[in-house]
């Protein structure tokens, strides 16, 4: 039972390695380095990276920017009595998405293949921006305005669901995102 006993050799650190251990350590280390360098590699050559662009912001200021954008680009309302505004902002513009207990606002209509600067911020607690079925997931904090440049793919109706637990009605916090030609 020698893993339970002190090492038999007082100078155990001088015992030579067996070949199997040495080969495995070398292979594993190389693999670890490959995995490490994959991340910077993707920042240079990959197309899916989060930005480092984020600002501290007050909820009321952020909400005002979002309201201004809604007033400018609103095309219709959806959701019956909820009257959720749908905006169709021009390509390349700044788009503000508000997360609050328990809704997203406004609903976005974007053009396929064009890029948009999407701003994400919460008005209250932590929320999770989860775009389905693309499966892009981004954390949304209160007080931190996160700017991500997104280029929507093929046209269709997508869903935004909240995937950070935010209390009793967490599961009702959903919205849509339209991609048009």
């Amino acid at each position: 039972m020698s893993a339970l006993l002190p090492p038999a050799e007082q100078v155990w650190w001088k015992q030579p390695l067996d070949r199997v251990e040495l080969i495995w350590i070398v292979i594993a280390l190389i693999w670890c380095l490959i995995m490490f360098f994959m991340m910077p590699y993707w920042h240079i050559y990959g197309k899916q990276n989060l930005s480092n662009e984020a600002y501290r912001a007050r909820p009321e200021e952020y909400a005002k920017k979002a309201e201004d954008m809604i007033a400018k680009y609103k095309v219709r309302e959806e959701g019956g009595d909820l009257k959720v505004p749908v905006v169709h902002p021009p390509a390349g513009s700044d788009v503000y998405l508000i997360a609050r207990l328990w809704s997203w606002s406004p609903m976005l209509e974007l053009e396929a293949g064009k890029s948009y600067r999407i701003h994400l911020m919460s008005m209250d607690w932590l929320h999770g921006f989860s775009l389905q079925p693309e499966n892009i997931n981004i954390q949304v904090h209160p007080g931190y305005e996160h700017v991500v440049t997104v280029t929507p793919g093929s046209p269709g109706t997508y869903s935004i669901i909240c995937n950070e637990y935010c209390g009793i009605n967490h599961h009702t916090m959903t919205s849509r995102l339209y991609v048009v030609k």
Partner: protein
Amino acid sequence: MAVNRMFRTCPASGLLFHEPAEKLMRFHAVAAVVSLLIGGILAIGVVLTRWQAIHLLPPDLFYQVLTAHGLNMLVFWIIFFEMAVLYFAGSTLLRSRLATPRIAWAAFWLMVIGALVNNYSVFRGDSSVMFTSYAPMGAHPTFYLGLILFAVGALVSCFVFLGTLVVARAERTYRGSIPLVTFGALTACIIAIFTIAAGAIILIPTFFWSVGLIDHIDSLMYKTVWWAFGHSSQQINVAAHVSVWYAVAAIVFGAKPMSEKVSRGAFLLYIFFLQLASAHHLLVDPGLTSNWKIFNTSYAMYLAVLASMVHGLTVPGAIEVAQREKGHNQGLFTWLRRAPWGNPVFSAMFISLIGFGFLGGISGVMMGTEQLNMIIHNTIYVPGHFHATVVVGTTLAFMGLTYFLIPVLFRREVMFPGMAKWQPYVFGLGMSAVSLFLMGAGTLGVPRRHWDISFAGNPFPYEFPGAAWLMMALAGISGLIAIVGGGMYLLITVGSVFLGKKIVTPGFQHVRARENVAAIPAAAPVITSHGSIGAGGMVAPGTFVLAMVFLAAFVLYYFINWKYLSTVWPLK
């Protein structure tokens, strides 16, 4: 004050138990199993609600039950058991008296009170904030208070363990270096101290915030520091269950570490680099730079992953060498075929090793890769991952050790030995299936901590693909199998400890050891070369083949995920 120096020698294992340490271990083990029982009952509610066909609980109760399940399993069951492991590795393995038993008892009761207070807050119904309790979502003050008390108790226990190491060295109860298992426990203890310090830094201000003394807790600061506590506490588990693997290899096979240098070096890498893991949870958060994320999430170039890969080779490698030396030297896998698969101590440990490596380890690296995290973050893939690491890995390893401890520590025969033989398979395979199906559903975007993925009655519902529903149903069925396996474990342990046949040894008594007696352990025979065992110049060729299979699976799955990522919308 007189120091209690009463010891007994276990007739079956030859281990030397210090009387107060023995009693403390028994109490910690019982508290752990009680927490597991509570967490297990709550698991039924979680499983049957997320299985949409049954959808048992209403939302408020579901979130409450999920919070309590997480805390009882992830914190109370595991840490109570780990403290028993620390005392075992400190006092019993070093054949030393435990330092300051009274303080150790105070710490134990503090942990019990903390666990009760925290459970009270959740059962009140106004603290359904999940294990993570992300501010500014607030819980009742007793929620944080309970955790703080529990953590202080655990911290004091860690220092009792360290004190015991000092006592053992001063009283010369062993010669040379501490045993490998004790070294692993020391690693767990060092990580625990860091972890609890991080917990204090964030939970104490949050407690003041909850009672109104502080008016703002920044959400990003909370999340960053909280995970230095939350994820690091999982690294205590890793260090502890790897130590248990080495212990079981020694107990069942008499296996000697292939090389002390390599195994200890790997533990040292844990101490240096595992702490960076809080970054794993912040990869899609604003306000942190990519450089910070990349360095930390890779634990400084994956050196801690390297350590786990090393343990993953050296533990089965040590078993293979021991088996080959006993004569099972033919072919590549005879040593494994002839292992005692009917002995739950071994089968639990081996399933734990395989499940932790293949399911938990590989998926953990996926989630911890900066860009890949975007297609995984907060999906049910995450619970899939940690049910492989913490449940198949840690919990199952501890279950295996329990079967050894029942006769040795509690001096009772294991009840229902036939059932005990099957228990690791039912629990381990059921839980592995849970992990796999949850990861499958997570890949399809199913969120974690979500009451209703059918979005019934919602004005903007999302319809998940049929495969996601199927995965969730299969996870539900596997979850029930795992719960049955957990129930078997509870039945066997509780039955054995309270009703099992007592092991009576003639002439048994605690013997007073003389002060400063160096109860010198019999030194293991020195083996400098392993003779003519093995093949291809390797002493453990079978293990090497298994390791290469693991690597192939790892590499393949890693690049499949990058391929999948490359198909989603471009972002920058």
